[in-house]
């Protein structure tokens, strides 16, 4: 909620023109409807809002407060919505040790628990692919629906895939309305109050990391994680795209992402790529890593490695 000079990076001129265009009768309408609805953000006003990153700090604070009120009412418990800015000198990186991963899917459900994905229809940000050891990494032969009694299986290894937080994200460049962008700390985020749901980004993402709310998402009130970030795990509306944000609500506060902490085998690593002493830099120095689909030149910040 703080005033952060780094964040808004969009053309100011555009903003003015729009304000001019919209600030006519429509604002009056908005005010009237807001008054009628008894809240400070009426339907019309929200409908005609600007992109979040273009808003003034005061307006942002208002919107966050409105969202907190709305979610708290909807879920009948105290929900906080922050917009914690990126930390200086931080670029996040992720490491996943596929020699360790046993395919237990603790991360998948841990992620859902933390990030308030819809339970039904189900949305999973992490997809764990079972690969035949004999085949190596062969996506078209992989299976995400394995359910043996126990894992790991003797003839298989597992490749969990989520957003790779690319340095050159294909999803961002195709978005027709600038509803998704890359933050200075490398996290690719979506403003789910701006997304129009055209799903261009889903076509463009080579990693199947983007997911669509095909109907109203459902989360039981007691299952909701009330600590949310505007660009991350706050409850999403229907008809928009969502994705992994490296647990932006946690990692910008210094915490590890939820999937890192839940992994029973410690296969998941996380750290600051700009800090020479970080786990990630050690990993890149000492281990051999690879990225998925490197031929597409998306340059992921998500590294797979074999620790042993």
């Amino acid at each position, binding site marked *: 909620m703080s005033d952060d000079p780094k964040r808004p990076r969009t053309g100011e001129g555009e903003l003015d023109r729009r304000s001019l265009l919209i600030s006519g009768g429509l604002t009056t309408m908005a005010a009237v409807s807001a008054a009628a609805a008894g809240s400070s953000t009426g339907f019309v006003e929200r409908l005609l809002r600007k992109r979040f990153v273009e808003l003034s700090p005061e307006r942002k604070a208002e919107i966050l407060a409105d969202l907190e009120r709305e979610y708290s009412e909807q879920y009948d418990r105290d929900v906080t919505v922050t917009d914690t800015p990126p930390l200086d000198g931080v670029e996040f990186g992720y490491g996943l040790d596929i020699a360790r991963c046993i395919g237990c899917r603790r991360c998948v459900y841990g992620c859902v628990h933390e990030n308030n994905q819809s339970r039904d229809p*189900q949305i999973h940000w992490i997809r764990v692919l079972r690969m035949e050891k004999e085949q190596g990494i062969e996506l078209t032969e992989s299976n995400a*629906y394995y359910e*043996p009694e126990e894992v790991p299986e003797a003839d298989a290894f597992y490749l969990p895939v989520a957003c790779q937080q690319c340095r050159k994200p294909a999803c961002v460049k195709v978005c027709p309305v600038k509803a998704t962008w890359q933050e200075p700390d490398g996290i690719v985020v979506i403003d789910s109050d701006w997304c129009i749901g055209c799903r261009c980004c889903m076509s463009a993402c080579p990693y199947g990391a983007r997911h669509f709310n095909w109907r109203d998402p459902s989360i039981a009130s007691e299952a909701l994680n009330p600590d949310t970030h505007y660009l991350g795990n706050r409850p999403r509306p229907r008809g928009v795209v969502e994705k992994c944000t490296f647990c932006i609500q946690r990692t910008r506060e210094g915490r590890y992402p939820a999937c*890192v902490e839940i992994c029973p085998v410690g296969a998941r690593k996380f750290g600051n790529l700009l800090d020479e002493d970080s786990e990630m830099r050690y990993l890149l120095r000492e281990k051999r890593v690879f990225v998925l689909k490197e031929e597409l030149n998306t340059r992921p910040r998500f590294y797979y490695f074999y*620790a*042993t």
Partner: protein
Amino acid sequence: MDRLDTPNDDGSESRKLLPGSSSLALLLIVFLALSLLTLLTIMKGGAGQVADDAGGTQAFSPADFPDIEFDRELLPEVAAAGTSDPEGIFRVRQPLAYEDYFPCTDCHADMEVNRERRELEEMHDDIVLDHGPKERWCFDCHNPDDRDSLRLANGTLIGFDESYRLCGQCHGTIYRDWRQGIHGRREGYWNGAKSYLLCAHCHNPHAPRFQPIKPLPPPVRPQFLSVSKEAEAHDE
């Protein structure tokens, strides 16, 4: 503009094409019928059939797994230090051995040391040694003279809470990775205090291979994304 109200479509002009026109009508009808038939055939098939036993038909949520601790509390020291102490590294929980038997001297103090390699019968019979060479025996690691400590190869005695030093004697590269946070779990702050586990928390030192576990269920297949879909889509 009154003269053009009704299109005149009988007989007067361009009638030389009449055969073509009626054939066109016929063609169009056949075409429409075929399209409709095709469409119905496609939709009757339904989206990608899946074998009944293929899994991924039901939506599970984290709440379905009460045994799994999704909201792990941080160690109090870690939570207190937060991001203010980047060097602060704390071990989580006490060594497992403390929970069951410790201190070992409660029993072993008065017992005579039996150095013979044998099958344990009265106590510790649950321990199956499956760790490296067959010749492995208790006193490779445990200190026969004071059971509350472990013994390194060079004779140094260490506590159970430093057991990683013992493991590190053989598993040097993993030990090094573990110290850097690359092997094993860490919890807390990536830029601050964090806790991690001892080797023995995950690997039973007597049979260190990681034990298989039951995986959580697969995601819902796209064909079954919403269980209540049929009810709502009343055109189906």
